[in-house]
């Protein structure tokens, strides 16, 4: 187990491919077929296409508050890629690349962001939990899913996500502590994108990095270049198999949120161009494309048409839900209990009667 002894206190980050697309650690380069390489690339590009279309729609007033993923594609796609179909994904709210890997369809994703609960009805075969807004609370669910897996003697792994800000929550501590005690098959992923909305890392923790926190819970903690798809795949693959056989692991994916926290946020209030500048060259997409072009799997002039194709696909998915996703009134009441309570039935009936009266008055 090559990473079990990784010492995060040394504050060294695992990197396989540098910013120029050069492989700097060939020993760690994950085995990937050409088909798998393109699948990773296409998933990253699809993620970026969804972001781009959603942000445009939001500006046009055709999308609600949206949390973009720009710059974090390798961290999300690389971790999600390592999961089997029978493994679980437990997201926070900025894990688009993982959602795509787990089979949450683009129309459903957009339906969620466009204000319908139906977006979170993923389909019965998909082992993915819905978006969890209260920060790090979902870490507990990941632990519980793993406890159940262990009790049944199964080998499914649960990949759980939070951000750098999420490590300050009590639930982060409680979940890692439980996972350590019960040796649950959990891979805890921290997408350290440097900001919790406006609050930078220095205000979040005095720890050397986020990976060191794992040591206190008796689990390995690995610091990884989150913008390096190969490092993310290599570490995630190892972590998933380690969790399957042994117990929990923590991965800190060191990355950068290139966009706003959400469309309601204005990053210029808390960071400058100089803060962002160094990260532009570290864009996970640029280095991966360089690598693929060098390898002959991608041509420079194929990129633009590919982006267009993916954006068209996203737009088509959006059109399929733009008008069909309005909530039926009874749906607001129907899903609180297996059977609607008399109280809920009364409130629904009263509201429907009001609407009927208002309607006939209007005629």
């Amino acid at each position, binding site marked *: 187990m090559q990473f079990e002894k990784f010492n995060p206190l040394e504050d060294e980050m695992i990197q396989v491919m540098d910013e120029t697309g050069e492989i700097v650690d060939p020993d760690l380069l994950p085995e990937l077929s050409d088909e798998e390489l393109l699948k990773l690339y296409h998933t990253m590009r699809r993620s970026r296409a969804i972001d781009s279309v959603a942000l445009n729609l939001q500006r046009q007033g055709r999308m609600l508050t949206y949390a973009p993923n720009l710059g974090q594609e390798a961290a999300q796609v690389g971790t999600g890629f390592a999961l089997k179909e029978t493994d*679980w994904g437990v997201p926070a709210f900025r894990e688009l690349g993982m959602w795509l890997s787990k089979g949450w369809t683009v129309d459903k994703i957009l339906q969620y962001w466009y204000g319908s*609960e*139906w977006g*979170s*009805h*993923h*389909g*019965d075969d998909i082992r993915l*939990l*819905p978006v*969890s*807004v*209260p920060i790090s*609370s979902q*870490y*507990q*669910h*990941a*632990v*519980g*899913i*793993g*406890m*159940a*897996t262990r*009790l*049944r003697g199964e080998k499914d792994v*649960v990949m759980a996500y939070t951000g750098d800000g999420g490590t300050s929550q*009590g*639930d982060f501590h*409680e*979940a890692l*502590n*439980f996972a350590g*005690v019960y040796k649950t098959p959990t891979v805890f992923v921290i997408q350290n994108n440097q900001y919790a909305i406006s609050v930078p890392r220095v205000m979040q923790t005095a720890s050397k990095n986020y990976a060191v926190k794992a040591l206190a819970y008796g689990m390995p903690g690995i610091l990884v270049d989150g913008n390096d798809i190969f490092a993310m795949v290599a570490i995630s693959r190892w972590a998933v198999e380690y969790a399957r056989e042994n117990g929990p692991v923590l991965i800190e994916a060191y990355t950068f949120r290139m966009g706003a926290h959400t469309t309601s946020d204005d990053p210029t209030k808390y960071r400058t161009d100089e803060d962002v500048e160094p990260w532009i060259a570290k864009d996970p997409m640029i280095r991966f494309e360089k690598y693929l072009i060098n390898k002959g799997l991608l041509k420079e002039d194929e990129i633009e048409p590919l982006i267009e194709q993916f954006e068209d696909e996203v737009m088509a998915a959006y059109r399929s839900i733009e008008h069909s996703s309005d909530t039926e009134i009874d*749906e607001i009441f*129907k*899903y*609180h*209990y*297996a059977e609607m*309570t*008399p*109280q809920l039935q009364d409130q629904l009936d009263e509201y429907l009667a009001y609407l009927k009266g208002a309607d006939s008055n209007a005629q």
Partner: protein
Amino acid sequence: MPNKINIVQAVQQALQNEMALDPTVVVYGEDVGVEGGVFRATVGLQQEFGEDRSFDTPLAESAIVGSAVGMAINGFKPVVEMQFMGFIYPAFNQIISHVARYRNRTRGQRHLPMVIRAPYGGGIRALEHHSESTEAMFAHIPGLKVVIPSTPYDAKGLLIAAIRDPDPVLFLEPKRIYRAFRQEVPEEAYTLPIGKAKIVKEGDELTVVTWGAMVPDVQKAVSNIDDISVEVIDLRTISPMDRETIVASVEKTGRILIVHEAAKSFGAGAEIMAIVNEKAFLSLEAPPTRLTGFDTIFPLPRGEEHYIPTPARIEAKIRELAAY
């Protein structure tokens, strides 16, 4: 051999019955496994069903409830214990943000068949935070059910119903009367309907609605009253509340007194008064009335006798209301 047991034994027996019948039922919490719970509500379960089915946890209420969410999503029916209701608050975020919401959030794709058990209420001369009655805070949450039994028979039947319920149930156990009396209870599993109150004593001049540890106190008060025909309703489920039984009773009696241990303002009694005003207004012959704990922090033991309404105070209030 007759199965004459008290409330805490009824809780234990309900868990034992369901664990034997359903291998997906697991019971866990602080001191729940080896010790069998600080009140012995889970005693013997680990010995009988093994460490996989009944186990101790680290001291972390949010993780106990939050992990139960994950276990319920992944095929189990967890029954978790909060050692005292006063310690449930670290788990409040999980309860309000996830436990109560999962079915609606996923449009029915994922639901949580789980039970959170907690001993509640005062009068046991305990330390601070061990005497809470905050059922109204939880009854206010859409998507949650809140059940409070007052007898061994009801405790067993309602807990089994809660475990079999496809939706999450907060099951609050009146610890002041955990061992107050015994009752003949069927040894095998049975259920009682959640959402149904019980008429403990029929009467036609005045209705008293109460629940939990206040039920025997009300019964004691009423046993001293020969000249007023009092109907006593044990609410049993706080949410969803059995409006029908309350309204039917008030339509008959025209007078209602609500007796609860919790603080007065914004308590479950206020909801009952609202229901009566909405549904039985024209039957009323006196203002709906409450006799409750004060809007104060529950006093430490040397003052607690003043907080919980006593049978004498209940009797006085009944007489006052009957004379209105």
